[in-house]
């Protein structure tokens, strides 16, 4: 899933200091699972904003709504009838949902209520860890299903570097060395000899480096 973190309330307040009405808009997908922007967080943020506006002596109408998805125009249509009641939207969706909401409602100011961080998974409750950078050309078959592009601080395709110590990365004892994980996996699979295959120079044009990406599936287009 896409993992996000709640922005500090002071930062959100700074964004909406001019508005007379604001809709706090949550999303039922990834940000609900990572507890940064679902219905519960919408309620918490809306209440906090109401209290702070009251303390500031400002009359601001704070609305609440959580959509099934903000990355889907169909669900975004559900707020068409209510959106005119608000000057602005604080979206608690990921960066995709925030931008998609703004694209759907061009006359409304849309502000981010979260920092979108990475594609990852929960290691345990309250702990999320990155697993994929969406490079557009998956190499996991060669690396025992451990991604060095994501998990090696130097994204080395032929690692580990000389800084790998006791299974940890040189940048921090709290970070696992991706190449230690790869080697452990290859060993467990009886494929350690694969380690000696040189990973070819990567074509990064399918990555961010190639410019904004788009996928067109002709078979699905109507």
């Amino acid at each position, binding site marked *: 899933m896409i993992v996000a973190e709640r922005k500090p309330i002071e930062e959100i307040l700074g964004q909406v200091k001019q508005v007379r009405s604001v809709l706090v808009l949550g999303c039922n997908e990834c940000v609900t699972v990572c507890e940064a922007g679902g219905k519960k967080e919408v309620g918490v943020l809306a209440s906090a904003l109401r209290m702070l506006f009251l303390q500031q002596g400002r009359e601001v109408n704070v609305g609440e709504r959580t959509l099934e998805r903000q990355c889907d125009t169909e669900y975004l249509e559900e707020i068409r009838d209510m959106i005119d009641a608000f000057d602005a939207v604080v979206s608690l969706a990921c960066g995709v949902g925030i931008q998609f909401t703004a694209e759907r409602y061009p006359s409304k100011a849309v502000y981010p209520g979260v920092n979108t961080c990475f594609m990852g998974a929960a290691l345990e409750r309250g702990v999320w860890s990155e697993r994929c950078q969406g490079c557009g050309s998956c190499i996991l078959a060669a690396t025992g299903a451990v991604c060095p592009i994501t998990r090696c601080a130097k994204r080395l395709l*032929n690692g580990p*570097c000389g*800084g790998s110590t006791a299974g940890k990365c040189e940048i921090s004892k709290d970070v696992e060395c991706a190449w230690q994980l790869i*080697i452990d996996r290859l060993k467990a699979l009886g494929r350690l000899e694969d380690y000696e295959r040189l*990973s070819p*120079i990567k074509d990064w044009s399918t990555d961010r480096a190639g410019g904004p990406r788009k996928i067109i599936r002709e078979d699905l287009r109507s």
Partner: protein
Amino acid sequence: MSPKTPSKLEKILRAGHRAVTSECGPPRGSDPAHIVHKAQLIQRHVDAINITDNQTSVCRLCSLAACIRLKLMGLEPVLQMVVRDRNRIALQSDILGAASFDIHNLLCLSGDHQRFGDNAQGQNVFDLDSMQLLQTVRRMRDEGKFLGGDPVQRPPAMFVGAAANPFADPFEIRVPRLAKKVAAGAEFIQTQCIYNLERFEKWMELVRDRGLHEKVFILAGVTPFKSAGMARYMKSKVPGMDVPDEVVKRMAGTPKDKQAEEGITICVETIQRLKAVEGVAGFHIMAIEWEERVPEIVERAGLFPRPTV
């Protein structure tokens, strides 16, 4: 095998001499006197001088410019090049720039992560890794081609090296990793600083088992301790460094005013012992901001005078 490049370092190694290299870190400013002075301290005692490339990610005068300084002094530089800061366009371009000044030695490295340096908030590049940089320069030299496939006019005539750390983890892939670097095109290796001689000798044994010592020249890396504090720091704070307790104890057990001497002596003893190890083709003396002591280490280790080729 006859030399493939005009590199003096290559000639010395192929002639069967033990090579001696050292390294200088460029200044944190634009005064060339700094690098000239450091080089003058060691020029008669080493065959080639590495110039580090923004080591530990601390921003300094660039390695290429400092290497050109050495060339202007008639010395033999080894251009260190890390893949942290430049993409494949800049790397190939700098290789050509170096070749245009007849810099004949290149050491291909990953580079320390930027979080160790003075620009921890910066982006890193890592378009290629160190092995892919080896492949890139060998392709430019041997096939006369850029990565993109176009021909290179006057291909770079560079003797190509890489680093090896026999002490990093996991140990079981340390030799396979060297084999990979050799397969990628490394012709010489400079190792991480050696303090754990048993572990290094074990690594060399595995290197010989695979015959890698006959495919690549291995220069054993040594760094003299200036003090017990430095020994402790290297042991606990430097990633991938293996300093055995007894070495730290030996430094700590020496009176403070004699610790520098003891550090030099340990370094000389290390070289003496490693001279007997089959497959060690020379030594890389990394005297960090202590270049003035390199001549003494070389002389006491019986590596002076240097051969002429």
